[in-house]
Protein backbone atom coordinates (compact mmCIF):
# COMPACT_ATOMS: atom_id res chain seq x y z
CA UNK A 1 0.00 0.00 0.00
CA UNK A 2 1.21 3.50 -0.78
CA UNK A 3 2.02 6.36 1.56
CA UNK A 4 0.63 9.84 2.11
CA UNK A 5 3.08 12.76 2.22
CA UNK A 6 2.99 12.72 6.04
CA UNK A 7 3.65 8.97 6.24
CA UNK A 8 6.48 9.30 3.76
CA UNK A 9 8.21 12.19 5.54
CA UNK A 10 8.02 10.42 8.91
CA UNK A 11 9.20 7.13 7.36
CA UNK A 12 12.20 8.90 5.83
CA UNK A 13 13.09 10.37 9.22
CA UNK A 14 12.96 7.18 11.25
CA UNK A 15 14.35 4.85 8.61
CA UNK A 16 11.45 2.43 8.28
CA UNK A 17 7.98 2.40 6.76
CA UNK A 18 5.35 3.74 9.11
CA UNK A 19 1.57 3.74 8.82
CA UNK A 20 -1.08 6.06 10.19
CA UNK A 21 -1.97 5.20 13.78
CA UNK A 22 1.53 4.14 14.88
CA UNK A 23 3.22 5.90 17.78
CA UNK A 24 6.78 6.81 16.86
CA UNK A 25 9.75 8.77 18.13
CA UNK A 26 11.20 10.86 15.31
CA UNK A 27 14.13 13.23 14.92
CA UNK A 28 13.13 16.85 14.29
CA UNK A 29 14.82 19.19 11.79
CA UNK A 30 13.92 22.45 13.45
CA UNK A 31 12.14 24.11 16.36
CA UNK A 32 11.04 27.61 17.24
CA UNK A 33 9.20 29.40 20.03
CA UNK A 34 7.79 32.91 20.34
CA UNK A 35 7.46 35.39 23.20
CA UNK A 36 4.10 33.84 24.11
CA UNK A 37 5.40 30.28 24.34
CA UNK A 38 9.18 30.75 24.67
CA UNK A 39 9.53 31.90 28.28
CA UNK A 40 7.58 28.89 29.62
CA UNK A 41 9.59 26.63 27.30
CA UNK A 42 12.92 27.99 28.55
CA UNK A 43 11.80 27.53 32.15
CA UNK A 44 10.76 23.93 31.37
CA UNK A 45 14.03 23.29 29.48
CA UNK A 46 16.07 24.21 32.52
CA UNK A 47 13.75 22.37 34.93
CA UNK A 48 14.01 19.13 32.92
CA UNK A 49 17.80 19.22 33.13
CA UNK A 50 18.51 20.79 29.74
CA UNK A 51 22.06 22.11 29.40
CA UNK A 52 22.57 22.68 25.68
CA UNK A 53 19.98 22.73 22.93
CA UNK A 54 20.33 19.71 20.60
CA UNK A 55 21.60 21.86 17.71
CA UNK A 56 21.81 25.68 17.94
CA UNK A 57 21.52 25.95 14.13
CA UNK A 58 18.14 24.23 14.24
CA UNK A 59 16.62 26.20 17.14
CA UNK A 60 15.25 29.73 17.01
CA UNK A 61 13.42 32.19 19.22
CA UNK A 62 11.25 34.95 17.78
CA UNK A 63 9.94 38.07 19.52
CA UNK A 64 6.79 38.76 17.54
CA UNK A 65 3.65 38.39 19.66
CA UNK A 66 4.15 41.52 21.77
CA UNK A 67 6.82 43.43 19.93
CA UNK A 68 8.05 45.96 20.89
CA UNK A 69 7.29 45.19 24.53
CA UNK A 70 4.15 47.02 25.72
CA UNK A 71 5.03 46.85 29.43
CA UNK A 72 7.82 46.00 31.86
CA UNK A 73 6.58 42.46 32.54
CA UNK A 74 6.77 41.50 28.87
CA UNK A 75 10.03 43.44 28.43
CA UNK A 76 11.58 41.21 31.09
CA UNK A 77 10.32 38.06 29.34
CA UNK A 78 12.00 39.34 26.17
CA UNK A 79 15.23 39.86 28.13
CA UNK A 80 15.02 36.27 29.35
CA UNK A 81 14.75 35.06 25.74
CA UNK A 82 17.69 37.19 24.60
CA UNK A 83 19.86 35.94 27.45
CA UNK A 84 19.00 32.31 26.70
CA UNK A 85 19.65 32.67 22.96
CA UNK A 86 23.03 34.30 23.59
CA UNK A 87 24.10 31.61 26.03
CA UNK A 88 23.02 28.84 23.64
CA UNK A 89 24.50 30.62 20.60
CA UNK A 90 21.20 30.25 18.79
CA UNK A 91 19.41 32.80 16.64
CA UNK A 92 16.93 35.20 18.17
CA UNK A 93 14.80 37.18 15.76
CA UNK A 94 14.37 40.62 17.27
CA UNK A 95 11.32 42.86 17.42
CA UNK A 96 10.32 43.88 13.92
CA UNK A 97 12.23 41.15 12.11
CA UNK A 98 8.91 39.51 11.54
CA UNK A 99 6.30 36.92 12.39
CA UNK A 100 7.75 33.57 13.44
CA UNK A 101 6.34 31.59 10.49
CA UNK A 102 7.40 34.17 7.95
CA UNK A 103 10.98 34.40 9.22
CA UNK A 104 11.32 30.61 9.48
CA UNK A 105 10.42 30.25 5.80
CA UNK A 106 12.38 33.32 4.60
CA UNK A 107 15.52 32.18 6.42
CA UNK A 108 15.15 28.53 5.34
CA UNK A 109 14.93 27.18 8.89
CA UNK A 110 12.41 24.81 7.36
CA UNK A 111 12.59 23.11 3.96
CA UNK A 112 10.54 20.66 1.92
CA UNK A 113 10.39 17.20 3.50
CA UNK A 114 11.43 18.44 6.96
CA UNK A 115 9.80 17.64 10.28
CA UNK A 116 9.42 20.89 12.21
CA UNK A 117 7.92 21.59 15.64
CA UNK A 118 6.89 25.13 16.46
CA UNK A 119 5.48 26.43 19.71
CA UNK A 120 2.70 28.22 17.88
CA UNK A 121 -0.51 26.70 16.60
CA UNK A 122 -0.03 28.07 13.07
CA UNK A 123 3.16 26.06 12.51
CA UNK A 124 1.33 23.90 9.90
CA UNK A 125 1.95 26.95 7.64
CA UNK A 126 5.21 25.24 6.52
CA UNK A 127 3.09 22.62 4.79
CA UNK A 128 3.21 25.24 2.00
CA UNK A 129 6.78 24.01 1.46
CA UNK A 130 5.80 20.34 1.68
CA UNK A 131 7.13 20.02 5.23
CA UNK A 132 5.47 18.08 8.05
CA UNK A 133 5.12 20.87 10.62
CA UNK A 134 3.09 20.77 13.80
CA UNK A 135 2.19 23.21 16.53
CA UNK A 136 3.13 22.17 20.06
CA UNK A 137 3.05 23.78 23.48
CA UNK A 138 5.94 25.10 25.53
CA UNK A 139 6.87 21.92 27.41
CA UNK A 140 6.84 19.74 24.28
CA UNK A 141 9.03 22.38 22.65
CA UNK A 142 11.46 22.31 25.57
CA UNK A 143 11.64 18.53 25.28
CA UNK A 144 12.46 18.75 21.57
CA UNK A 145 15.10 21.45 22.19
CA UNK A 146 16.75 19.08 24.67
CA UNK A 147 16.43 15.75 22.83
CA UNK A 148 16.14 16.72 19.16
CA UNK A 149 13.19 14.33 18.99
CA UNK A 150 9.45 14.17 19.53
CA UNK A 151 7.02 11.32 20.08
CA UNK A 152 3.88 11.46 17.98
CA UNK A 153 1.12 9.44 16.42
CA UNK A 154 1.48 9.12 12.65
CA UNK A 155 -1.69 10.89 11.49
CA UNK A 156 -4.37 9.74 9.10
CA UNK A 157 -4.66 12.11 6.13
CA UNK A 158 -7.66 13.88 4.62
CA UNK A 159 -7.29 14.59 0.89
CA UNK A 160 -8.88 17.79 -0.40
CA UNK A 161 -8.91 18.22 -4.17
CA UNK A 162 -9.96 21.56 -5.67
CA UNK A 163 -10.63 21.68 -9.37
CA UNK A 164 -11.19 24.75 -11.50
CA UNK A 165 -9.54 28.16 -11.34
CA UNK A 166 -10.40 30.93 -8.91
CA UNK A 167 -12.16 33.91 -10.48
CA UNK A 168 -10.53 37.31 -10.62
CA UNK A 169 -10.91 39.01 -7.25
CA UNK A 170 -11.07 35.67 -5.43
CA UNK A 171 -7.85 34.70 -3.64
CA UNK A 172 -6.26 31.90 -1.64
CA UNK A 173 -7.77 33.34 1.55
CA UNK A 174 -11.28 33.06 0.15
CA UNK A 175 -10.58 29.46 -0.83
CA UNK A 176 -9.22 28.43 2.57
CA UNK A 177 -12.04 30.23 4.39
CA UNK A 178 -14.48 28.27 2.23
CA UNK A 179 -12.68 25.00 3.02
CA UNK A 180 -12.57 25.75 6.77
CA UNK A 181 -16.33 26.30 6.59
CA UNK A 182 -16.80 22.95 4.85
CA UNK A 183 -14.42 20.86 6.97
CA UNK A 184 -15.31 22.75 10.23
CA UNK A 185 -13.15 23.76 13.17
CA UNK A 186 -12.83 20.19 14.42
CA UNK A 187 -13.07 18.33 11.12
CA UNK A 188 -9.40 17.42 10.86
CA UNK A 189 -8.58 16.92 14.55
CA UNK A 190 -5.51 14.67 15.04
CA UNK A 191 -5.26 14.35 11.24
CA UNK A 192 -3.14 15.69 8.43
CA UNK A 193 -4.54 17.39 5.32
CA UNK A 194 -3.19 17.19 1.76
CA UNK A 195 -4.32 19.76 -0.80
CA UNK A 196 -4.38 18.56 -4.38
CA UNK A 197 -5.61 19.92 -7.68
CA UNK A 198 -5.51 22.67 -10.24
CA UNK A 199 -6.58 25.44 -7.86
CA UNK A 200 -3.36 25.08 -5.85
CA UNK A 201 -0.95 24.23 -8.65
CA UNK A 202 -0.39 27.77 -9.85
CA UNK A 203 -0.28 29.34 -6.39
CA UNK A 204 2.67 31.39 -5.17
CA UNK A 205 4.50 30.32 -2.02
CA UNK A 206 2.72 33.16 -0.18
CA UNK A 207 -0.71 31.89 -1.21
CA UNK A 208 0.24 28.33 -0.31
CA UNK A 209 1.24 29.61 3.14
CA UNK A 210 -2.22 31.17 3.53
CA UNK A 211 -3.79 27.81 2.64
CA UNK A 212 -1.62 25.69 4.96
CA UNK A 213 -1.86 28.29 7.75
CA UNK A 214 -5.59 27.86 8.26
CA UNK A 215 -5.47 24.07 8.53
CA UNK A 216 -4.95 24.99 12.20
CA UNK A 217 -8.56 26.22 12.08
CA UNK A 218 -9.67 22.70 11.11
CA UNK A 219 -7.78 21.17 14.05
CA UNK A 220 -5.18 19.55 11.77
CA UNK A 221 -1.83 18.28 12.99
CA UNK A 222 -0.27 19.24 9.65
CA UNK A 223 -1.57 20.68 6.38
CA UNK A 224 0.47 20.04 3.27
CA UNK A 225 -0.02 21.57 -0.17
CA UNK A 226 0.99 19.15 -2.94
CA UNK A 227 4.41 20.44 -4.09
CA UNK A 228 3.37 20.36 -7.73
CA UNK A 229 4.14 23.85 -9.06
CA UNK A 230 6.04 24.97 -5.95
CA UNK A 231 8.88 27.38 -6.68
CA UNK A 232 11.59 28.14 -4.13
CA UNK A 233 14.82 30.14 -4.29
CA UNK A 234 16.87 26.95 -3.72
CA UNK A 235 16.98 23.40 -5.11
CA UNK A 236 14.84 20.84 -3.37
CA UNK A 237 13.48 17.35 -3.74
CA UNK A 238 9.73 17.35 -3.15
CA UNK A 239 8.13 14.53 -1.18
CA UNK A 240 5.17 13.29 -3.22
CA UNK A 241 2.32 11.03 -2.14
CA UNK A 242 2.00 7.59 -3.70
CA UNK A 243 -0.90 7.07 -6.11
CA UNK A 244 -2.28 4.28 -3.97
CA UNK A 245 -1.90 6.19 -0.67
CA UNK A 246 -4.70 5.60 1.80
CA UNK A 247 -6.76 8.62 2.83
CA UNK A 248 -9.24 8.51 5.68
CA UNK A 249 -11.54 10.93 3.85
CA UNK A 250 -11.53 12.57 0.43
CA UNK A 251 -13.25 15.79 -0.56
CA UNK A 252 -13.58 17.30 -4.04
CA UNK A 253 -14.67 20.84 -4.73
CA UNK A 254 -15.07 22.72 -7.99
CA UNK A 255 -14.00 26.23 -7.01
CA UNK A 256 -14.45 28.01 -10.34
CA UNK A 257 -17.62 29.79 -9.16
CA UNK A 258 -16.40 30.63 -5.66
CA UNK A 259 -17.18 34.19 -4.57
CA UNK A 260 -15.34 36.11 -1.84
CA UNK A 261 -15.89 34.51 1.54
CA UNK A 262 -16.29 35.94 5.02
CA UNK A 263 -16.06 34.35 8.45
CA UNK A 264 -18.70 35.62 10.86
CA UNK A 265 -18.07 36.05 14.60
CA UNK A 266 -17.23 34.07 16.73
CA UNK A 267 -15.64 31.09 15.04
CA UNK A 268 -13.38 30.84 11.97
CA UNK A 269 -15.51 28.04 10.50
CA UNK A 270 -18.63 30.20 10.52
CA UNK A 271 -18.05 31.03 6.84
CA UNK A 272 -20.46 32.40 4.26
CA UNK A 273 -20.52 34.05 0.86
CA UNK A 274 -19.88 37.76 1.24
CA UNK A 275 -23.03 38.95 -0.55
CA UNK A 276 -25.50 38.85 2.38
CA UNK A 277 -23.02 40.81 4.53
CA UNK A 278 -22.27 43.59 2.07
CA UNK A 279 -23.12 47.00 3.48
CA UNK A 280 -22.55 46.13 7.13
CA UNK A 281 -20.64 49.10 8.68
CA UNK A 282 -17.14 48.56 10.07
CA UNK A 283 -15.00 50.57 12.51
CA UNK A 284 -11.61 49.00 12.06
CA UNK A 285 -9.78 47.10 9.31
CA UNK A 286 -6.61 45.09 9.85
CA UNK A 287 -4.21 43.56 7.31
CA UNK A 288 -1.31 41.47 8.54
CA UNK A 289 -0.54 38.23 10.43
CA UNK A 290 0.97 34.87 9.52
CA UNK A 291 -2.11 34.31 7.38
CA UNK A 292 -2.10 37.44 5.19
CA UNK A 293 0.67 39.96 5.89
CA UNK A 294 2.89 39.08 2.94
CA UNK A 295 3.97 41.20 -0.02
CA UNK A 296 1.23 39.97 -2.38
CA UNK A 297 -1.35 40.82 0.30
CA UNK A 298 -0.01 44.35 0.82
CA UNK A 299 0.16 44.86 -2.95
CA UNK A 300 -3.47 43.87 -3.44
CA UNK A 301 -4.49 46.29 -0.68
CA UNK A 302 -2.30 49.06 -2.12
CA UNK A 303 -3.74 48.58 -5.61
CA UNK A 304 -7.25 49.01 -4.22
CA UNK A 305 -6.41 52.01 -2.02
CA UNK A 306 -3.91 53.87 -4.24
CA UNK A 307 -4.91 57.49 -4.72
CA UNK A 308 -7.97 57.10 -2.47
CA UNK A 309 -8.74 57.58 1.22
CA UNK A 310 -9.95 55.16 3.86
CA UNK A 311 -13.58 56.03 4.78
CA UNK A 312 -14.06 58.66 7.46
CA UNK A 313 -14.44 57.14 10.90
CA UNK A 314 -12.64 53.92 9.88
CA UNK A 315 -9.09 53.08 10.85
CA UNK A 316 -6.86 50.77 8.85
CA UNK A 317 -3.90 49.06 10.53
CA UNK A 318 -1.19 47.31 8.52
CA UNK A 319 1.45 44.95 9.94
CA UNK A 320 3.83 43.56 7.28
CA UNK A 321 4.70 39.91 7.94
CA UNK A 322 8.42 40.65 8.16
CA UNK A 323 11.09 43.30 7.81
CA UNK A 324 11.90 41.88 4.40
CA UNK A 325 8.23 42.18 3.40
CA UNK A 326 8.24 45.77 4.66
CA UNK A 327 11.35 46.66 2.64
CA UNK A 328 9.92 45.10 -0.52
CA UNK A 329 6.63 46.92 0.00
CA UNK A 330 8.52 50.21 0.45
CA UNK A 331 10.51 49.59 -2.73
CA UNK A 332 7.48 48.77 -4.86
CA UNK A 333 5.46 51.75 -3.58
CA UNK A 334 2.80 49.75 -1.76
CA UNK A 335 3.61 51.25 1.63
CA UNK A 336 3.43 54.79 0.28
CA UNK A 337 0.04 54.09 -1.33
CA UNK A 338 -1.31 52.54 1.87
CA UNK A 339 -0.05 55.27 4.20
CA UNK A 340 -1.26 58.03 1.84
CA UNK A 341 -4.67 56.35 1.93
CA UNK A 342 -4.62 56.76 5.69
CA UNK A 343 -3.30 53.40 6.90
CA UNK A 344 -1.42 53.17 10.18
CA UNK A 345 1.73 51.07 9.78
CA UNK A 346 2.80 49.05 12.84
CA UNK A 347 5.82 46.88 13.66
CA UNK A 348 6.14 43.62 11.75
CA UNK A 349 4.78 40.97 14.06
CA UNK A 350 1.52 39.49 15.25
CA UNK A 351 0.19 42.92 16.25
CA UNK A 352 -3.45 43.19 17.24
CA UNK A 353 -4.34 39.62 16.15
CA UNK A 354 -3.47 38.24 19.58
CA UNK A 355 -5.12 40.98 21.62
CA UNK A 356 -2.10 42.20 23.52
CA UNK A 357 -1.51 45.67 22.07
CA UNK A 358 -1.18 47.73 18.87
CA UNK A 359 -4.89 47.98 18.14
CA UNK A 360 -7.36 46.52 20.63
CA UNK A 361 -10.93 47.25 19.43
CA UNK A 362 -13.42 49.16 21.59
CA UNK A 363 -16.75 47.93 22.95
CA UNK A 364 -19.33 47.16 20.24
CA UNK A 365 -16.84 47.87 17.47
CA UNK A 366 -16.83 45.82 14.29
CA UNK A 367 -13.49 44.69 12.90
CA UNK A 368 -12.76 43.24 9.49
CA UNK A 369 -9.45 41.41 9.59
CA UNK A 370 -7.19 39.46 7.25
CA UNK A 371 -6.17 37.24 10.19
CA UNK A 372 -7.19 33.66 10.86
CA UNK A 373 -9.14 33.75 14.15
CA UNK A 374 -12.23 35.56 15.35
CA UNK A 375 -12.98 33.86 18.65
CA UNK A 376 -14.60 36.07 21.27
CA UNK A 377 -11.99 38.30 22.87
CA UNK A 378 -9.34 37.31 20.33
CA UNK A 379 -8.20 40.89 19.69
CA UNK A 380 -8.33 41.78 23.37
CA UNK A 381 -11.95 42.87 23.81
CA UNK A 382 -14.78 40.34 24.20
CA UNK A 383 -17.29 43.15 23.48
CA UNK A 384 -16.08 43.61 19.90
CA UNK A 385 -16.80 41.41 16.88
CA UNK A 386 -14.34 40.24 14.24
CA UNK A 387 -15.08 39.29 10.63
CA UNK A 388 -12.34 37.43 8.74
CA UNK A 389 -11.76 37.99 5.04
CA UNK A 390 -9.17 38.24 2.29
CA UNK A 391 -6.83 41.28 2.20
CA UNK A 392 -8.67 42.56 -0.89
CA UNK A 393 -11.99 42.47 0.96
CA UNK A 394 -10.48 44.16 4.01
CA UNK A 395 -8.95 46.94 1.89
CA UNK A 396 -12.13 47.52 -0.12
CA UNK A 397 -14.22 47.52 3.06
CA UNK A 398 -11.86 50.07 4.66
CA UNK A 399 -12.34 52.25 1.60
CA UNK A 400 -16.15 52.09 1.73
CA UNK A 401 -16.50 51.97 5.51
CA UNK A 402 -18.64 48.87 5.17
CA UNK A 403 -18.19 45.25 4.22
CA UNK A 404 -17.99 44.97 0.45
CA UNK A 405 -17.04 42.65 -2.37
CA UNK A 406 -13.63 43.85 -3.66
CA UNK A 407 -14.22 42.61 -7.19
CA UNK A 408 -15.11 45.99 -8.65
CA UNK A 409 -11.73 47.39 -7.51
CA UNK A 410 -9.70 44.56 -8.99
CA UNK A 411 -9.99 44.98 -12.76
Amino acid at each position, binding site marked *: MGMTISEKIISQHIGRTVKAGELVITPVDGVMATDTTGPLALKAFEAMGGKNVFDPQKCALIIDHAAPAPNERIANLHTMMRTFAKAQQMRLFEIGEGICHQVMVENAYVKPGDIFMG*ADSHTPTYGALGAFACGVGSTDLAAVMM*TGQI*WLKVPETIKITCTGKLQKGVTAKDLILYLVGEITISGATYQSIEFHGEAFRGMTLASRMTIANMTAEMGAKAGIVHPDGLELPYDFTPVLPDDEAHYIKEFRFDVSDLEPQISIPESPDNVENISPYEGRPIDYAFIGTCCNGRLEDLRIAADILKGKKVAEGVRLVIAPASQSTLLDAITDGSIQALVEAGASLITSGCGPCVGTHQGVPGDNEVVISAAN*RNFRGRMGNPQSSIYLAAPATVAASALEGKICNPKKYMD
Partner: protein
Amino acid sequence: MIKGNTHVYGDNIDTDRIIPGKYTKTLDLSTLADHVLEDLDPSFRSKVKQGDILVAGKNFGCGSSREQAPLALKKAGVSVVVAEYFARIFFRNAINIGLPVIEIGNHSIRSGHNVQVDLSEGSVKDMTSGEVYEGQKIPQVMMDILAEGGMVNYLKKNKRYVL
Protein backbone atom coordinates in the same frame (compact mmCIF):
# COMPACT_ATOMS: atom_id res chain seq x y z
CA MET B 1 -9.21 7.38 40.71
CA ILE B 2 -10.25 11.05 40.70
CA LYS B 3 -13.57 12.16 42.20
CA GLY B 4 -15.10 15.59 42.04
CA ASN B 5 -17.93 17.98 41.42
CA THR B 6 -18.52 18.99 37.79
CA HIS B 7 -18.71 22.26 35.86
CA VAL B 8 -20.10 21.54 32.39
CA TYR B 9 -19.56 23.62 29.23
CA GLY B 10 -20.27 23.04 25.53
CA ASP B 11 -18.46 22.35 22.26
CA ASN B 12 -15.45 24.09 20.71
CA ILE B 13 -14.30 25.99 23.81
CA ASP B 14 -11.22 27.71 22.37
CA THR B 15 -8.07 28.69 24.21
CA ASP B 16 -8.93 32.41 23.93
CA ARG B 17 -11.98 31.64 26.07
CA ILE B 18 -9.95 29.50 28.48
CA ILE B 19 -7.32 32.22 28.97
CA PRO B 20 -7.38 35.38 26.82
CA GLY B 21 -4.14 36.10 24.95
CA LYS B 22 -3.62 39.39 26.79
CA TYR B 23 -2.95 37.49 30.05
CA THR B 24 -0.67 34.79 28.66
CA LYS B 25 2.64 36.60 28.67
CA THR B 26 3.66 35.86 32.23
CA LEU B 27 5.43 33.26 34.34
CA ASP B 28 3.17 34.04 37.31
CA LEU B 29 0.69 31.18 37.16
CA SER B 30 -1.68 32.60 39.78
CA THR B 31 -2.55 35.51 37.46
CA LEU B 32 -3.54 32.93 34.83
CA ALA B 33 -5.94 31.29 37.30
CA ASP B 34 -7.44 34.71 38.11
CA HIS B 35 -8.66 35.06 34.52
CA VAL B 36 -9.49 31.46 33.67
CA LEU B 37 -12.60 31.11 31.44
CA GLU B 38 -13.50 34.77 32.07
CA ASP B 39 -14.87 35.42 28.57
CA LEU B 40 -16.96 32.22 28.72
CA ASP B 41 -18.25 32.24 32.28
CA PRO B 42 -17.13 35.14 34.47
CA SER B 43 -18.47 33.31 37.55
CA PHE B 44 -16.30 30.21 37.03
CA ARG B 45 -13.32 31.56 38.97
CA SER B 46 -15.38 32.13 42.11
CA LYS B 47 -17.36 28.87 41.74
CA VAL B 48 -14.48 26.44 41.15
CA LYS B 49 -13.07 24.59 44.14
CA GLN B 50 -9.87 22.59 44.46
CA GLY B 51 -10.46 19.12 42.96
CA ASP B 52 -13.45 20.05 40.81
CA ILE B 53 -13.85 18.45 37.39
CA LEU B 54 -14.32 20.40 34.15
CA VAL B 55 -16.56 18.65 31.62
CA ALA B 56 -16.95 19.76 28.00
CA GLY B 57 -18.24 18.65 24.63
CA LYS B 58 -16.37 18.34 21.35
CA ASN B 59 -12.98 19.84 20.49
CA PHE B 60 -12.15 21.35 23.88
CA GLY B 61 -9.12 23.65 23.77
CA CYS B 62 -9.08 24.43 20.06
CA GLY B 63 -7.13 27.42 18.78
CA SER B 64 -3.76 28.59 19.98
CA SER B 65 -0.92 26.44 21.31
CA ARG B 66 -0.76 28.35 24.60
CA GLU B 67 0.12 25.97 27.43
CA GLN B 68 -1.19 28.72 29.70
CA ALA B 69 -4.68 27.27 29.00
CA PRO B 70 -4.25 23.96 30.87
CA LEU B 71 -1.97 25.73 33.38
CA ALA B 72 -4.74 28.23 34.21
CA LEU B 73 -7.25 25.40 34.75
CA LYS B 74 -4.85 23.40 36.89
CA LYS B 75 -3.84 26.40 38.96
CA ALA B 76 -7.54 27.24 39.51
CA GLY B 77 -7.99 23.81 41.10
CA VAL B 78 -9.37 21.68 38.24
CA SER B 79 -8.31 18.05 38.84
CA VAL B 80 -9.20 16.55 35.45
CA VAL B 81 -10.87 17.65 32.21
CA VAL B 82 -13.43 15.30 30.68
CA ALA B 83 -14.54 15.95 27.09
CA GLU B 84 -16.11 14.23 24.12
CA TYR B 85 -12.74 14.89 22.52
CA PHE B 86 -9.95 17.48 22.71
CA ALA B 87 -8.07 19.66 20.24
CA ARG B 88 -4.70 17.99 19.76
CA ILE B 89 -2.32 20.64 21.14
CA PHE B 90 -4.42 21.17 24.28
CA PHE B 91 -4.51 17.40 24.82
CA ARG B 92 -0.70 17.12 24.73
CA ASN B 93 -0.17 20.31 26.74
CA ALA B 94 -2.48 19.15 29.54
CA ILE B 95 -0.65 15.84 29.94
CA ASN B 96 2.73 17.58 29.71
CA ILE B 97 1.92 19.88 32.62
CA GLY B 98 0.35 17.07 34.65
CA LEU B 99 -3.34 17.87 34.17
CA PRO B 100 -5.22 14.62 33.46
CA VAL B 101 -7.62 14.58 30.50
CA ILE B 102 -9.98 11.91 29.26
CA GLU B 103 -12.10 11.53 26.10
CA ILE B 104 -15.45 9.77 26.53
CA GLY B 105 -17.50 10.62 23.41
CA ASN B 106 -21.16 11.58 23.75
CA HIS B 107 -22.29 12.14 27.31
CA SER B 108 -25.08 13.69 29.34
CA ILE B 109 -23.12 14.80 32.42
CA ARG B 110 -24.58 17.97 33.99
CA SER B 111 -23.07 20.65 36.20
CA GLY B 112 -23.08 19.83 39.89
CA HIS B 113 -22.89 16.07 39.31
CA ASN B 114 -20.51 13.93 41.26
CA VAL B 115 -18.18 12.16 38.88
CA GLN B 116 -15.48 9.53 39.25
CA VAL B 117 -12.68 9.25 36.67
CA ASP B 118 -10.52 6.15 36.23
CA LEU B 119 -7.67 7.12 33.91
CA SER B 120 -6.05 3.69 33.74
CA GLU B 121 -9.35 2.08 32.69
CA GLY B 122 -10.31 5.05 30.53
CA SER B 123 -13.72 5.23 32.16
CA VAL B 124 -15.89 7.87 33.79
CA LYS B 125 -18.78 7.17 36.18
CA ASP B 126 -21.43 9.81 36.78
CA MET B 127 -22.31 8.98 40.42
CA THR B 128 -25.31 11.33 40.31
CA SER B 129 -27.02 9.76 37.29
CA GLY B 130 -25.44 6.33 37.58
CA GLU B 131 -24.26 6.37 33.98
CA VAL B 132 -20.89 4.88 33.10
CA TYR B 133 -18.88 6.01 30.06
CA GLU B 134 -16.18 3.80 28.56
CA GLY B 135 -13.82 6.33 27.07
CA GLN B 136 -10.42 6.24 25.41
CA LYS B 137 -7.45 4.97 27.37
CA ILE B 138 -4.55 7.33 26.83
CA PRO B 139 -1.32 5.84 25.43
CA GLN B 140 1.14 4.35 27.93
CA VAL B 141 3.71 7.11 27.29
CA MET B 142 1.10 9.69 28.40
CA MET B 143 0.21 7.64 31.49
CA ASP B 144 3.93 7.54 32.32
CA ILE B 145 4.24 11.32 31.85
CA LEU B 146 1.20 11.89 34.10
CA ALA B 147 2.58 9.50 36.71
CA GLU B 148 5.64 11.77 36.98
CA GLY B 149 3.44 14.85 37.26
CA GLY B 150 4.32 16.05 33.76
CA MET B 151 6.95 16.05 31.03
CA VAL B 152 9.52 18.03 33.03
CA ASN B 153 9.89 15.36 35.71
CA TYR B 154 9.47 12.56 33.17
CA LEU B 155 12.43 13.74 31.10
CA LYS B 156 14.48 14.69 34.14
CA LYS B 157 14.18 11.05 35.22
CA ASN B 158 14.28 9.17 31.88
CA LYS B 159 16.35 11.61 29.75
CA ARG B 160 14.40 10.38 26.69
CA TYR B 161 10.91 9.28 25.59
CA VAL B 162 9.96 5.63 26.03
CA LEU B 163 6.97 4.40 24.03
